């Protein structure tokens, strides 16, 4: 039998790209700003979400979708901020994909939201590949992780637009070099917004909140 070669040049994740485009259209129709938050395990995504909910202006209606099985948002805190908290069962997957997020979003009244925070699964490798139709991709990096992290996960740093450098209160106890980290991040992505903060000590959060509030306003 003859062998025939067929050129495809087809993106491997084309189904996810299509699903993400549909989600993006839904988000745009509802005027909701969607933040996809990613990090390694333990970097402090959940703490950042909690601090954010506490500090955002009261009129910003928020929901949180939790894809990270290792963390759990206090539903009461989200509700106090006028929103809902939903947990996605990822069945052990290392990332959220657009189809999973779509099923969770079905349970929300998108039109009644200004902000949807998606807490992705704690890992810096996989989520970078999977678009979720989000308006913004954010990353939380903790100073306990080492300032060479950007070079280990280059794709993630080129695919996100805001970086929360968390746990800066621990700087005296680590050899983390903030300026080396900034340099490495900006070399990969010169447009990255970087916020140095500590959720535990509640430092540096004002600038982050200000930036986020502006972004939410521009989406509505």
């Amino acid at each position, binding site marked *: 039998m003859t*062998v025939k070669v067929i050129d*495809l040049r087809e*993106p*491997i*994740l084309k189904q996810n790209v299509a699903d993400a485009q549909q989600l993006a259209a839904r988000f745009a129709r509802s005027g909701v700003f969607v933040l996809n938050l990613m990090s390694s395990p333990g970097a402090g995504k959940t703490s950042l979400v909690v601090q954010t909910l506490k500090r955002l202006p009261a009129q910003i209606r928020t929901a949180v979708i939790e894809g990270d099985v290792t963390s759990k948002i206090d539903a009461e805190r989200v509700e106090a901020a006028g929103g809902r908290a939903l947990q996605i069962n990822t069945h052990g997957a*290392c990332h959220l994909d657009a189809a999973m997020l779509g099923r969770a979003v079905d349970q929300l009244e998108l039109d009644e939201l200004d902000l949807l925070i998606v807490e992705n699964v704690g890992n810096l490798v996989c989520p970078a590949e999977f678009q979720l139709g989000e308006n913004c991709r954010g990353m939380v990096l903790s100073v306990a992780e080492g300032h060479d992290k950007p*070079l280990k996960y*280059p794709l993630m740093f080129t695919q996100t637009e805001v970086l929360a450098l968390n746990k800066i209160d621990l700087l005296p106890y680590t050899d983390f070099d903030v300026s080396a980290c900034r340099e490495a991040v900006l*070399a*990969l992505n010169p447009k990255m917004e970087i916020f140095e903060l500590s959720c535990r000590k509640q430092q540096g959060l004002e600038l982050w909140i200000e930036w986020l509030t502006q972004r939410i306003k521009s989406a509505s």
Partner: protein
Amino acid sequence: MHELPVVRSIFEIVIEHARVNSAVRVVKINLRIGALTDLVDQWVERYFEMLAQGSIAQGAKIEIERPPGLMRCRQCDAQWNYDRQSIGAPCPQCGSRESAIVTGREYTVESIAIE
């Protein structure tokens, strides 16, 4: 491990095009994976074997091409190739660290060979 959902997508693309082209067997699959993206060959092979069992793609050989990425200096416009190890390196011409990634995100099923 994000290989399983990724390999499932590969499998679906391969089967779809094999059917359209009335293939009786898929002999080979060529993937193109850029320097920025993560995919472990050994897992791809293992998962594909599992997914393809009993299908016309069973036993297909998977070949992964990994083209080097291209980086461009924002200061002097020099271009050079990088891989995952050398990604943070300064411009070889002027030493600047302000560089832009030109290519490295390839993530495609390039072609299939069918009978």
